[in-house]
Every structure is written in structure tokens, then in C-alpha cells.
């Protein structure tokens, strides 16, 4: 299985562990991710103004570059997925915008590339049953909360890789690794996204609500596929960590995948995490991560 691969800006900077755990896991699973020769930041948000085509320029360049490579395009970050899929949709459906954007970037692109999230490959190409057979260090019932957030699911008709209100792909993935997926009502709620950069805290932090809800259902770990969700849920717990209170590590789903596939801690790169994930792995005695702190 060979795919073109779009890393996006954050995986090369603050979310290195997301990429390193993915690339190592994919190698074990026989999935070859070939990085695009030419790519640039997707813009992180899809424009919600119908009269503005400028923000479509950079994602369309990336899509046109993937067309030349002639393969389906895989991405890991929920925001990149959202922007690339929605841009692809506009280019396919809106002839005026297609013409305008393609003339500007001097490319011939009309939406030929299929954009996929890694979860779709695990579910639809490899299959979770087959994935479960490749697991060498199962998590032995570790209670894990799947956090979807917004960008993987909405808008459902353009992006949705699953049911927008009641998704299950991450839970099925977690079950394949031997985890016990925790059901909680906040799994598709917004974490607050870029509003974290606005001065002043909201009266009720949306990220805190998500974490508390997952914790109240017994979650010991939260998984996500969005670097900003990872940050917000982690950052919302900074106070708890300082006070020595019980905090829940927030990790990328591929970091659990790497552990389950028996890969070593060097591919996990937990450096930037606020709530130390190593303690959880130690407490459940998962193979390959015993030395993590």
C-alpha cells in the first residue's frame, strides 16, 4: 500500500511524536507513506467566506502536487484533513472558483485526488480485525477515551469520516489495540480551538469539560488526531499537574498504536506533553515503554 503523504506544519514542529509514531507504525503495517515533493501549510482553517478564494490557494497547490504523484493523499492532522477535503470539494463543485484558483497557481486541477485520513486506511484498507492480529503488546483493558473534536467530523457531507453525532472509528481502533473504549458525552464537542490565543479565559473552559467528562467515566488516557485538541486538553490540565492532582494524559492515537505494535519509546516523542503519558504506560506495565517517565 503506497500513498502520498502530507505532514502539515505542526507535525514538523510541536507534534513530532504524532509523525514519528505514525511512520514507524506504518512501516510495521506495510503502509508506505511517500511525502509529497512540494507542499506548504494548508492554512489550518477552511475559509467560511464564500466570496474569498485566496485561502484556497495553498491547499489547492498541495492537491495539484498530489495529482502529479498519482496516488491517494493521506494526512494525519484533523485540521489538514478538514482543509484539504473541503478545498477538494469546492474545486470539484464550484467551476468559477476552480478556474480562478487554478489560473492563479497555473495548475490544471479539478479534484482528481482522493484525500484520506490515516484512520480510514486502518479501517477500510487494513481492517481492524487484521490490525488486532498484528498487535504484540495489547493494552489489557486500559480505559481510553476517544476524542474526535470537530474537524474530523464536520461538515459531515464534505469531511465526515464517520457519523457526525455518534462516531465509532476511534473506539473500534482502540478495541483492536486491546483498550477498553470509554463512552462519554463530550467526544464530539469543540475544545475551544484557536480561541486559546484570545486574552482572558472563558468562564467554563470547553477543554476542561471534555477532560472532566472523560475522567468521570473512568478514562485513564485520552486519544486524539488533532495537535490543537491535544494541546488544549493537555493545557487545560496544567494546574492539576502542578497541584499534583490526578490528570489524564492526552496522546495521539498513533502513539498508542506504536506501543501496541511493540515499537520502542524513541518513536513516541512525548517531550512537549504537559501531563506525562509515561506514567500511565508504566502503571499498566505495557511492554516497550517500561522506562518512560
Amino acid at each position, binding site marked *: 500500500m503506497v500513498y502520498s503523504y502530507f505532514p502539515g506544519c*505542526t507535525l514538523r514542529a510541536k507534534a513530532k511524536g504524532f509523525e514519528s509514531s505514525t511512520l514507524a507504525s506504518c512501516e510495521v503495517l506495510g503502509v508506505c507513506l511517500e511525502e509529497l515533493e512540494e507542499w506548504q501549510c494548508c492554512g489550518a482553517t477552511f475559509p467560511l467566506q464564500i466570496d474569498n478564494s485566496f485561502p484556497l490557494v495553498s491547499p489547492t497547490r498541495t492537491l495539484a502536487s498530489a495529482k502529479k504523484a498519482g496516488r491517494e493523499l493521506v494526512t494525519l492532522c484533523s485540521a489538514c484533513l478538514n482543509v484539504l477535503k473541503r478545498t477538494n470539494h469546492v474545486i470539484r463543485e464550484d467551476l468559477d472558483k476552480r478556474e480562478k484558483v487554478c489560473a492563479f497557481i497555473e495548475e490544471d486541477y479539478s479534484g482528481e485526488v482522493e484525500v484520506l485520513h490515516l484512520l480510514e486506511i486502518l479501517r477500510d484498507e487494513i481492517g481492524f480485525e487484521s490490525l488486532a492480529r498484528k498487535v504484540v503488546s495489547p493494552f489489557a483493558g486500559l480505559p481510553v477515551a476517544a476524542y474526535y473534536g470537530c474537524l474530523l467530523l464536520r461538515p459531515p457531507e464534505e469531511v465526515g469520516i464517520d457519523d457526525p453525532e455518534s462516531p465509532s472509528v476511534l473506539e473500534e481502533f482502540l478495541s483492536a489495540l486491546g483498550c477498553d473504549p470509554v463512552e462519554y458525552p463530550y467526544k464530539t464537542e469543540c475544545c475551544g*480551538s484557536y480561541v486559546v490565543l484570545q486574552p482572558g479565559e472563558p468562564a467554563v473552559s470547553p477543554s476542561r469539560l471534555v477532560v472532566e467528562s472523560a475522567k468521570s467515566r473512568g478514562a485513564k488516557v485520552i486519544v486524539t488526531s488533532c495537535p490543537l485538541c*491535544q494541546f488544549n486538553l493537555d493545557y487545560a490540565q496544567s494546574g492539576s499537574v502542578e497541584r499534583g492532582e490526578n490528570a489524564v494524559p492526552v496522546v495521539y492515537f498513533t502513539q498508542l498504536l506504536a506501543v501496541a505494535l511493540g515499537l520502542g519509546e524513541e518513536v513516541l516523542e512525548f517531550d512537549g506533553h504537559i501531563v506525562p503519558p509515561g506514567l500511565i504506560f508504566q502503571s499498566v506495565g505495557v511492554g516497550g515503554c517500561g522506562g518512560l517517565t
Partner: protein
Amino acid sequence: MKLSREVIHTEDKRKLQDISGEEILSCYQCGKCSAGCAMTSAMDLLPHQVIRLLQLGQVQEALDSKTIWVCASCLACSARCPRGMSLANVMESLRSTFLRPGDRCLNPAEIPYELLEIVPEQALVAAFRKYT
């Protein structure tokens, strides 16, 4: 407030509809958007109240509200609206009305250094797209 055709149908409102692609009068004020919004604790007006103001032509009042800057574009409202209106597009059209002449609502110099050190790049790119 005295309502008249002139008060309700303003040029400003037409512009918002051009930017957002949404017909603001199509909202029937069921409140589902506000019920499911994750950010209401930081808002001064609920999302459906912003739409109601626009329906009545009170664009300036909507522009002055904190709500449009607290919206995180998570699209929960848009995905759930029984009228199929993308409320998130309307919020963005209000932000755009403020930003397009060159104003901004996020000053990079005011982001605390400790936060800047740890926040993912994705947040910075998104925030500067939304707030400047």
C-alpha cells in the same frame, strides 16, 4: 426599536449575506445552535440572538458583541441547524466585516510568551487567519 423596511433591509446586512452565502431570514429561532454551542460561557449574546439581531437589521450591535470572536468555527451549529443554515459562515462574515478594512483583534505582541512557546503552530496560523 422602531422597525421598518428600511431598518431591517440594510446594505450592511446584504453584504453579510454575500460574504457568508447564507439567507439570514431562513432562521426560525429554534435555538438548537445555542443549545449545542461549546463556547457560550464566554459569549455575551447566544448564537441565535446574534442571528435575530441581524434579522432585525441590527448589524452594528452584532458586530460589537464578544460572541463573534469567541466562536471557534467548530461547525456544531451548522451541522445541526434544521434550516440548513451555516451559522459559522455568518459569524465569519461578521468577523470579516470588521477585519477587511485592516483592523485586527489579536495583537501578536500581547500573546504571553509562555503560551507562544508551547502552543502548536496550527493554533497560530488559525488564529491569525481568524483574527487579523
